[in-house]
């Protein structure tokens, strides 16, 4: 029944509704796939018993006619950044290796309340810091994809690498991710699936281990645009426990998934290109423009002049917030503690042992840019640039409905590449970071393959709370691209 795992959320919901399958059956198929694909290391913690129990409950609800909507009974992977009551939550870090929350994050609780079945906690870059899932304390995730004719392990992207590998490898029908600078969209692009980051504030951050508070947003990783809309509908919504949560009712995202861009204005920001960017990406981008144009959209060039400052701005703002957010991991109340002869020594030993190199690097950068004498030159300036970047977008959205760009400047690279050059690694986020800084909704849609047979995504970005436009354009792009490639072995 490997085809069960290949179902979209929408198809699974339909099959469940018609009684063609059960949640238990779907869940068992996924559990079997997870067990057969442990080589991918997509999960830090598997929760098969919990999953079967929830699947059973879902089937029982359905039998009574109380099914809760399209997510009910659908097996999903949960990024290990979301705190889950009674289920170990590590955030990919040694420092939380044995941390079992007594509470459930709002996003995972929303999904649970919509009947979704959690298969386990997906692997991720440590504390969501990374673009390749190599910083996880629990080992790197292997992408289910391989280059044509080559036997080299590839990264799935990151930080939601386990989620992306699980969804593209058909270990789960969908997965949650979080996106701070591209952590949903870049891995989606690397693994040939859809990854969506909503407007900042759509999804509550309550109970999600914080990386950079002003940027962190949860979102879905799915295999279709419609699935992303269905799942976002279940995850998002106002939460009084998060002061930055948007106090608005959600529109009907799924209804917006109409592959019709007639009359829509699509902006092409000329700044979204990079020296040495593979030709295949440039070609695919041009192809994307043509597709939308052919479907009746008006395409036009726009300029976002401050784009080139986005990456450095991001790598000031995000580490600054992270350095403070991670101060709570001090060995005093929970998580790893390495005893020392004094309080300060305990801090030092605990944090030296508990955090990996990339996390330590960002904590140091963050503390540095906030320190006396440097605060104005770095943090304050970065905040100013951030508002200019937001203004770039606002100006552009005066004229166009959505923007079309590549998602990432490359296809997936091999495990071991770019490992010793953090700057090269940071460049992965160059096209995703601007929308993060501006808090805008953006989606990566799988649009083609490069010469090595690896998937490439195109990104659509919309204005604040314009998810409906985003889903509409993304549905059209999806239809035009009709991406159907799957990783080998699926």
């Amino acid at each position, binding site marked *: 029944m490997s085809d069960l795992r290949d179902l979209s959320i929408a198809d699974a919901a339909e099959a469940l509704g018609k009684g063609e399958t059960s949640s238990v059956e779907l869940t068992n198929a996924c559990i079997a796939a997870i067990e057969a694909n442990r080589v991918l290391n997509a999960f830090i913690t598997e929760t098969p018993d919990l999953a079967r129990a929830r699947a059973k409950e879902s089937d029982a609800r359905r039998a009574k006619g109380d099914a809760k909507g399209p997510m009910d009974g659908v097996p999903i992977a949960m990024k290990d950044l*979301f*705190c889950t009551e009674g289920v170990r*939550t590590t*955030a990919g870090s040694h420092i*939380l290796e044995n*941390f079992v*929350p*007594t*509470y459930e*994050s709002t996003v995972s609780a929303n999904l649970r309340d919509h009947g979704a079945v959690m298969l386990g906690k997906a692997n991720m870059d440590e504390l969501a810091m990374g673009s390749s899932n190599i910083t996880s304390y629990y080992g790197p995730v292997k992408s289910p994809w391989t280059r044509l004719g080559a036997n080299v392990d590839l990264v799935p992207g990151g930080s939601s690498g386990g989620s992306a590998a699980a969804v593209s490898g058909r270990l789960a029908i969908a997965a949650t991710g979080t996106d701070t600078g591209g952590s949903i969209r870049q891995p989606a692009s690397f693994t040939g699936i859809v990854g969506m980051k909503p407007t900042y504030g759509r999804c509550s*951050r*309550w*109970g*999600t*281990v*914080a990386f*950079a*508070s*002003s940027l962190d947003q949860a979102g879905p990783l799915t295999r279709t645009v419609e699935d992303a809309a269905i799942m976002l509908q279940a995850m998002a919504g106002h939460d*009084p*426990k*998060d*002061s*930055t949560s948007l106090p608005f009712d959600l529109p009907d995202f799924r209804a917006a998934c109409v592959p019709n861009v007639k009359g829509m204005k699509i902006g092409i920001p000329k700044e979204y290109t990079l020296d040495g960017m593979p030709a295949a990406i440039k070609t695919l981008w041009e192809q994307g423009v043509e597709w939308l144009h052919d479907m009746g959209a008006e395409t036009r060039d726009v300029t976002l002049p401050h784009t080139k400052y986005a990456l450095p701005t991001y790598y000031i703002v995000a580490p*600054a*917030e992270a*350095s*403070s957010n*991670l*101060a*709570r991991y*001090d060995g*005093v*109340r*929970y998580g790893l503690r390495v005893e020392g002869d004094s*309080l*300060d020594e305990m*801090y030092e030993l605990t944090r030296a042992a508990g955090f990996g190199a990339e996390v330590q690097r960002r904590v140091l950068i963050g*503390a540095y840019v*906030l*320190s*006396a004498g440097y*605060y104005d030159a770095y*943090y304050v300036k970065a905040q100013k640039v951030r508002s200019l970047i937001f203004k770039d977008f606002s100006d552009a959205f005066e004229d166009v409905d959505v923007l079309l760009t590549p998602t990432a400047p490359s296809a997936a690279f091999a495990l071991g590449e770019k490992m010793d050059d953090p700057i090269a690694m940071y460049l992965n986020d160059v096209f995703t970071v601007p929308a993060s800084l501006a808090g805008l909704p953006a989606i990566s849609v799988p649009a083609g393959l490069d010469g090595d047979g690896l998937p490439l995504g195109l990104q659509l970005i919309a204005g604040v709370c314009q998810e409906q436009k985003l889903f509409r354009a993304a549905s059209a792009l999806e239809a035009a691209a009709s991406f159907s490639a799957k990783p080998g072995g699926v």
Partner: protein
Amino acid sequence: MAYLIQGETGDWEVVIGLEVHAQAVTNAKLFSGASTSFGGEPNSQVSLVDAAMPGMLPVLNRKCIEQAVRTGLGLRAKINRRSIFERKNYFYADLPQGYQISQYLHPIVGEGTVTLDMDDGSTRDVGIERLHLEQDAGKSMHDQDPTRSMIDLNRAGVALMEIVSKPDLRSPDEAGAYLRKVRSILRYLGTCDGNMEQGSMRADVNVSVRKKGESGLRTRVEVKNVNSVRFVMQAIEIEAERQVEVWEQGGEVRQETRLYDPNLGETRPMRSKEFAHDYRYFPDPDLLPLDLDEDFIAGIEASLPELPDTKKKRLIEDLGLSAYDAGVIVADRETADYFETAAAGRDAKQVANWLTSNLFGALNKRAVGIPESPVTAENLGALVGLIEDGTISGKLAKDVFEVMLETGKAPAVIVDEKGLQQITDTGAIEAIVDKVIADNPGQADDVRGGNEKAIGWFVGQVMKASQGKANPGQVNALLKQKLLG
């Protein structure tokens, strides 16, 4: 009379600024729903947010904002329509988040004024620099275990209002008067109980000295966490003298944080570990800027009680009290309330007299405060009422008051029980007068013979014969009529 320190090189002036940390009266903490009550079992009032569990987020408690605005209005200060919460980053075991959420560049309350009432009846205005909201830290307990420190997070996250004065204070007395006045205002407003012993009000004292006549400010030293008015005054005196000595010996006062040790009577530097130097403040990204609308502020303004300065003015101007009495009465909200209740419908000056000359003394002797007074405000008022309507004389009233102190009974009851009503019945008094005249013919002739002063002796005899109950005015009039015709 300026407070000056006589050094070897001349006179030195002391410059003082105070930072008062006042715990806001609220049921829940600044950013969590946990209880703020005092004295709970350790760690029994700690929410997930207070313990800084992963993924927890602060949500601002509206009541704390109200209390801060209320306090700001009471300090006659500018209420800032937009304020911003920032993170003050430092590591300490009783600071679970690794940062304190505070306000830094944009506090909720700006400049204001506090008027001090000095002992000589004069007043003096002291500038308020700002008031900001911040979280309290937990408590480290070092005496529970031989090798480890224990942490109690009950207080972690409780809302503090930090009230920062301008460096306008010039003597320990002024600093004491300032603290008492701020505490009085907070209590009137009901925004802080001002209980320094329980730590709900603490002060950091900034002290510097300069040569008399010098205009600039020299390096200041912060004496942290002083927990009584007396200690604040002592700490200033001792620290100022230390600084004078340092300067005069050719040294340089270092900008540092010190602790006051009341047992040793000295200040000493805090260990550097107890005091981080770079707090890396930045706006807390978990919280939006706090925007206050005019209606919110107007609503609080409309609900403010009459504050001590206004009340004092009213007691002087409308009720005719002396500035001193009025100052004493309004200093404490409980005293003021007591007075107002007692004085309702009575001779206010007489009530004030009874309160400041008789009741205060009696309570002091018993070492109790107004709330524990055996004489209720209603009963004190009633006592003055009995004097006013002539039921008892002022002299008898003192005896009644003593009984009131001992028994707590109402004065009318005591007067009844002891039969102390003043005799105002002319017939009854006349009978006594006649008897006294008849019993003392010699003295009567003396008066009739022109020694009018001797009439005083007769008054005394009549009062004695009536056990003090006869109305002295009537007695006097009757004697004059009978002896002098």
